C-alpha cells in the first residue's frame, strides 16, 4: 500500500466550508469581535440553525433559551464558539457519505460520545482544557473517514478481519493499509491547519505514553474513547474496548469514584448532542 499516495489523496475529501475559515480568522484576529463572528454565522442559515440548536442543548447548560447567535456565542465563549462551528461544519460536510459497514450516523455518535466524555473528564479531573478535550474527542477517529472513503476495499477487509477477531482495528489498519487512523487523522488535521494539541491527541490516543505530559488532552481522549466504546455509543468500526493505559488514567486526575457519574452523564449528553447535531 502506497501511503504517500493516500496522503496526497486527502485533497479529494470534501473541504471545510468557507464560513468556517472566516469564523476562525475572525476569532484569531486580535481585534476581532464576537459580533463579526455572529454576523458570519448568521450569513449561513443552516449553520446558524445548528449552532443555536447545539448551544441550547442541555449539554451547554445555558440558563435560558437563546434565540440570538451573538448572545449564544457570548455565553459559551470564543473557544467554544470555534469548536462548535468546526463541529457543525464537519458534521455537515461529512454527513451524507456512504461508509460501507459503518454508518455515518454511528461514526459521529461515537465521536460525539467521546467528545462529551472528554469534556466531562477534563472538567472533573481539572487537568485538561475542557473545550480542547471536547474537540479532540470529537476528532479522535477522524482519520478513519479518509480510510473508509478513499480506500473502501482495503478498509472493508481490515474491518472484516477485526470482526473475525483477528486483532484491534487500528493494528489491522496498519497491516492492510500501511497506516492507521491515528497517523492519518493527525495528517488530516495538520492539512486543515488545526492547532498541534489536536494533532497530538488524535495521533496518540491509542498510545498515550507517547504524548508529552504537558498535553493532558491526549490522556483524556484515551480514557474517553474507552468509555464511549465500552458503552457502545455509536462506533467508528471497532467492536473492542481498547486497553486502558495506567499512566493516562493518572494523568486525567480522576478518581475511580467519579466514574459512574461520568458514564451516566456521557450517555445523556451523547443523546442530546446527537439529536442537536444530526436530527434533520
Amino acid at each position, binding site marked *: 500500500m502506497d501511503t504517500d499516495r493516500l496522503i496526497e489523496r486527502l485533497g479529494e475529501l470534501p473541504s471545510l466550508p468557507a464560513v468556517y475559515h472566516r469564523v476562525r480568522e475572525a476569532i484569531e484576529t486580535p481585534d476581532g469581535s464576537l459580533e463579526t463572528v455572529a454576523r458570519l454565522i448568521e450569513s449561513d442559515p443552516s449553520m446558524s440553525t445548528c449552532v443555536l440548536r447545539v448551544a441550547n442543548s442541555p449539554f451547554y447548560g445555558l440558563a435560558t433559551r437563546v434565540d440570538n447567535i451573538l448572545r449564544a456565542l457570548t455565553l459559551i465563549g470564543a473557544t467554544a464558539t470555534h469548536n462548535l462551528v468546526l463541529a457543525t461544519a464537519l458534521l455537515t460536510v461529512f454527513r451524507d457519505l456512504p461508509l460501507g459497514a459503518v454508518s455515518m450516523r454511528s461514526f459521529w455518535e461515537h465521536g460525539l460520545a467521546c467528545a462529551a466524555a472528554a469534556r466531562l473528564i477534563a472538567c472533573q479531573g481539572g487537568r485538561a482544557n475542557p473545550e480542547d478535550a471536547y474537540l479532540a474527542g470529537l476528532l479522535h477517529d477522524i482519520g478513519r473517514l479518509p480510510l473508509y472513503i478513499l480506500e473502501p476495499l482495503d478498509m472493508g477487509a481490515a474491518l472484516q478481519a477485526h470482526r473475525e477477531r483477528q486483532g484491534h482495528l487500528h493494528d489491522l489498519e496498519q497491516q492492510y493499509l500501511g497506516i492507521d487512523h491515528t497517523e492519518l487523522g493527525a495528517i488530516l488535521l495538520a492539512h486543515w491547519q488545526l492547532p498541534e494539541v489536536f494533532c497530538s491527541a488524535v495521533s496518540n490516543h491509542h498510545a498515550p505514553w507517547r504524548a508529552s505530559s504537558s498535553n493532558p488532552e491526549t490522556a483524556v481522549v484515551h480514557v474517553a474513547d474507552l468509555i464511549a466504546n465500552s458503552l457502545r455509543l455509536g462506533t467508528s468500526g471497532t467492536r473492542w474496548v481498547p486497553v486502558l493505559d495506567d499512566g493516562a488514567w493518572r494523568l486525567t486526575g480522576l478518581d475511580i469514584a467519579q466514574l459512574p457519574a461520568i458514564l451516566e452523564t456521557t450517555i445523556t449528553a451523547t*443523546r442530546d448532542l446527537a439529536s442537536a447535531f444530526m436530527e434533520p
Partner: protein
Amino acid sequence: MKSVPPPRFLSPAKSADELSSNPLPGFHPLTLNVLREVIARLHSCRSLSELLAIIERGARLLLPTTQMAFLLRQPDACLEIVHRVPHTATDKLDALVDELIDRGHFGQALKQGFVWASAGPDRTCLLSRISTASRIHGLVLWVDPALSPPWHQTLGTLTDLIGLGLERLNDDAEAVLLPQPAASAGSCPALDIAIPVDRLTGLAHRTHFMRFLQQAILDSAPQLSAATLLLDVDGFHRVNRELSYETGDQILCELAARLNDALHTQPAYDSLGVVERDICVARTGADEFGIALARVRHPQRLVELAAQLHSHIAAGFQQQGSRLHLSVSIGIAVASGLAESTSAQDLMRNADAALKRAKQAGRNRHVLYESSWEAPGTAHLRTESLLQEALRQDTFNLHFQPQFELATGRLAGAEVLLRLTLGDGAPLSPASFIPVAESTGQIIEIGEWVLRRACRQLRAWDALGLARIPLAINVSAIELSQPDLSIRLQSILEQERIGMERLHLEITETAIAHNEGQTIANLKTLRAAGFEIWIDDFGTGYSSLKSIKNYPASGIKLDREFVKDLSEDHGARVVAATILDLARNMGYPVIAEGIEDAAQCALLRGQGCDIGQGFHLGRPVDALEFQRLYLSEAT
C-alpha cells in the same frame, strides 16, 4: 413400618437409614437438587452478578462455609478477580490467588481443567476451569476445610454452568461470530449450544431467530413485551441483477453490520428498556432482516427505533466509487402482555403484514402492526406470490391491440396489454392481479418489465424493417407518484435504444388525482423528455374540467362506456360528441376505445374522432400474430 430394602446392585447402601447417616463424602444428598435449580435459573439471568449470585447460592447450600473467588479472562487475556465470597475474606482470597499463581497452580488448572492445592493448615482448595467448547472464560477458586476429591465433580459441574451462563450473557451477535471450532478433545458436545449462523452476514440464522422469538413471547409479562421488526431492502433484486451478486452480498453484509451496530448501543437499550441479550438480529430471508426483542419495557418507542435504523442506511453504500442508495421498509409487531397463545409465527405474520403496508405506502418507511387490520384475505397473498414468481420466471407476456386512424384506416399504433398465464394454462385476468400488484408495490417492477419488453419488441420489429408504430402502455397511480419516474423511464429507454416518441403513456384521471402534485410534475418532465401522454378512461373517473386544461397531455382516450351505447342511445351520442368537441377545442386528438361494431365506428368517424380501437377493428393478440396481421401488410 418395614422399609423395602433397595436392590443391592443399585446402591452400595444397605438401607435407607444407612444412606442418610453415612452419606458419600463429597456427594451431598442435595447435590442434584441444587444443580437442577441452577440449571433452571440459568437462562433467566441477565447479568454477570445475577449469574454469580445463582452459583454462589447453590454452592453455599452444599458447603455453607465455602469461600470462593471468581476470575474471568479480560479482553487482554489476563485473568482478573471479579467477585469474592464472602466479602470479608477478600484480602485472604487475593493473597491466596497470588500464592497459587506463584506456585504454578493456575497454569496447571487452565491446562487440566482443575487442580487441588493446600491453602494452609487443614484448608484445601480447588481451582476449576470455566470453559465451554468454544473458549476458556476463567477460573473459580473454592476454599473449604471439608473439601475432598469427590467434590471435584459437583463443583466442576457448577463451574461448567458458569461457562454456559457466560456464553449466554455474551452478546448474541458476538457469540455467533465466533468461528465454530471442531469439537476438541475433552469438550462436551452436548453442552455446546451452537447458534445457527447466517454464513454471509454473520448474523443469527432464521431458525435461531424463531426460537428466540418464541422464548421472548413465553417470557413476556404485562410490563415486558416481545416484539419483532422485519426489514426488507426495497427493490434489492435490482442490485443483484444490475450490479452483480457479489456486490449484492457485500451490501447485505454492510447493511447487517450497520443494523447490528445501531441496535447494540446503550441508548438503544435504555430507550427500549432491554439489555444486550434481549436482542437478536438475524437474516430472515434473502434480503430481509429480522430483529427479535425480548422483555421490552417501552414498546411504544419501537417506532423511534425504526426511524433511527432508517437514518443509518440513508447515506447509502459505496459501490465502485459511486454511491448506491438503498432504502428499507420496516414492519413492526408487538406481542403485548399476556396475548392469548401468540406464537412466533403469528408475530412474524403481523410484522410481515405491517411490512407490506410500509411497501405499499411507498417504501422507505416503517409501519406498526395494528390488530384492527385483521385478515382481508389469503387470496391476496397467493396472488402476490404468484406475481413474484411470474416476475422471476418471466411468465408474463404482452398482447397488442391495434389502433387505426378512422379516416384512412391506417394503422396508428397499438396498446400494450399485460397477460399472465398460470401454470395450468388458465389466464389470470389483469383486473384481478393489477390491484394486488398496486397494493404491494410490485406494480413498479411489473411496469418496468412491461416497458423493457415493449422496447425490445419495437426494436425487433424495427430490425425487420416493419412499420415504425408507437406503442401505448399503461402507467399506474403508484408509478406516477414515484419522484424518480421520469429518470427511470428515460434510462430504460436509453438502455434499450428506443426514442421516447415511440412510447405513449396512458394514465387515468383517477391516477392523477391520487397524488396530483407529484404526478403533474412527473407528467411535465415526461412530456418534456419526449413521451406522449394520453388520458385514459376519459370521462369516467375523477373528471374536472378545470384541471384538464392543466394536464400536460398529448391526447385523450374516450372511454368504452360512451362508445358502448352510441348507436342506440341518444344521450350517449350527445356525451361523446361533447367530449370530442371539447377535445378538439383544446387541441387534443381523441382515441375511442371499445368499438365493437361498424355502426359505432361510422358514428365516431362522422363526429371527427381521430383514432379507434376495439374488437371490431382488431382484438389484442400476441406479438407474432400482431406482426402477421397488421405489420406485414403495412410494409
